[in-house]
């Protein structure tokens, strides 16, 4: 039923794996976060990682990770529809007997896969720089997948609206502000902030669950936050939530 979508996705992936420039620039974006956080960490603490990494650095890391979910698939998204239109290959593609749904699904899948790859590279970088434990790396990656799917869908939509790559690039570079805003918001609201939110919202089961879920995403970065006991609890929570996120 979705065989056409898979054909489209496979072609997009093969096509983009050959686009060395785009791969290099995406990898550069993905590794920029760990690089910056690592350098700031050295500047502040004189050491790259360990117990001393402050909450500010970790919230910085969370912003970079969120940005990575949006940036990593962006080149693919730009090329997926706006690029095809500019290259005049969209019309021949749509002349084939296939549903437009399959074209969109295939391209969405391809963009998401590249975005996940970018996130993994990004988090692996943080794992080295900040000392994120391996199980947290997996938990955070899994927890970011819904966001990756959302980001890819938004990018694909913008690519469809745009008439050419240049236009798509203009709009997509504005979209990067979205994760920045989210990232800063959640970065400030670290594990501590969620506790406050929980207290004010009452202990309803839903609130508990959604807050815990978000904590699983972001508390991963708070392993070394200012209050040691706090961060440890955050890490333990995130560890427990790993099973939840992978379900």
């Amino acid at each position, binding site marked *: 039923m979705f065989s056409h979508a898979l*054909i489209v996705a496979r*072609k997009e992936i*093969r*096509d983009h794996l050959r*686009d060395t420039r785009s791969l290099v620039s995406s990898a550069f974006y993905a590794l920029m976060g760990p690089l910056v956080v690592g350098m700031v960490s050295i500047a502040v603490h004189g050491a790259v990682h360990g117990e001393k990494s402050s909450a500010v650095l970790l919230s910085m890391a969370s912003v970079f990770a969120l940005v990575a979910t949006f940036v990593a698939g962006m080149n693919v998204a730009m090329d997926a529809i706006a690029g095809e239109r500019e290259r*005049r290959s969209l019309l*021949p593609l749509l*002349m084939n007997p296939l549903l437009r749904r399959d074209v969109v699904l295939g391209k969405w899948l391809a963009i998401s896969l590249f975005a996940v790859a970018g996130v993994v590279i990004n988090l692996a970088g943080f794992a080295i720089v900040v000392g994120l434990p391996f199980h947290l790396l997996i938990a955070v990656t899994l927890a970011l997948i819904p966001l990756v799917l959302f980001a890819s869908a938004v990018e694909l939509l913008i690519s469809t609206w745009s008439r050419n790559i240049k236009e798509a690039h203009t709009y997509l570079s504005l979209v990067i502000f979205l994760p920045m805003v989210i990232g800063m918001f959640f970065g400030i609201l670290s594990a501590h902030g969620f506790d406050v939110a929980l207290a004010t919202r009452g202990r309803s089961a839903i609130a508990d669950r959604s807050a815990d879920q978000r904590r699983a995403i972001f508390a991963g970065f708070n392993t070394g936050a200012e209050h040691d006991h706090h961060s440890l609890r955050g890490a333990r929570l995130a560890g427990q939530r790993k099973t939840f996120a992978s379900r």
Partner: protein
Amino acid sequence: MIQAHNLQKRFGAVQAVRDLSFSAPDGKITGLLGSNGAGKTTTLRMICGVLQPDHGSVRIDKPVGALLDHIGLYPRLTARENLAYFGELRGIPRAQLSQRIDQVLSELGMEHIADRRTGGFSQGECMKTALARAILHSPQNLLLDEPGNGLDVPSVRALRGLLRQMRDSGMCIVLSSHILEEIRILCDHVAIVSAGRVVAQGSPEDLCRRTETESLEDAFIKLTQENLECSATL
């Protein structure tokens, strides 16, 4: 067999096609001849179904392949991979696909460029790849928009040979062109398009006889002039 009845299409203020009808029989090459902006490309697009006509209808009895002015290849894929992608989307079984691709590639004499990425292709090579893509699923009807564009002399000859061969096998071929010579050499049936209408159709000799002119060029000028004067008075 392709039949178009009273096609109309408007883009904003421009009435690209106004009341255009023609029929293209099987086993013949039908040429749409017209000056720039006469509505040839719009007509072909409506026939192959990528544009919805405002009015009128198209009847096609068998699968159609089309090479429109959108040649668009994927520059990072080789010619063979470009063809394979479209073949898979067309639903050609994988076992037959590579065989069919080899067949088409040899028909168009492009074995030597088959495994090169299309990003480095010349215009003619792109054209050939796009043509290969259009005939990959062995359609019974073929639409070609300005097929000679960018091809070198041997390729044009090869293309003509190929089109004649396809015609003799019973295919219905419709091609648009503004080049008289091409139409005269290749087409059995000509429809002259002017300002979104078919002003005359028939064999090239037929058209000359009817307009009492020596050459297809004179016939073309005479027929389109009449139509333009008509439109101007309306």
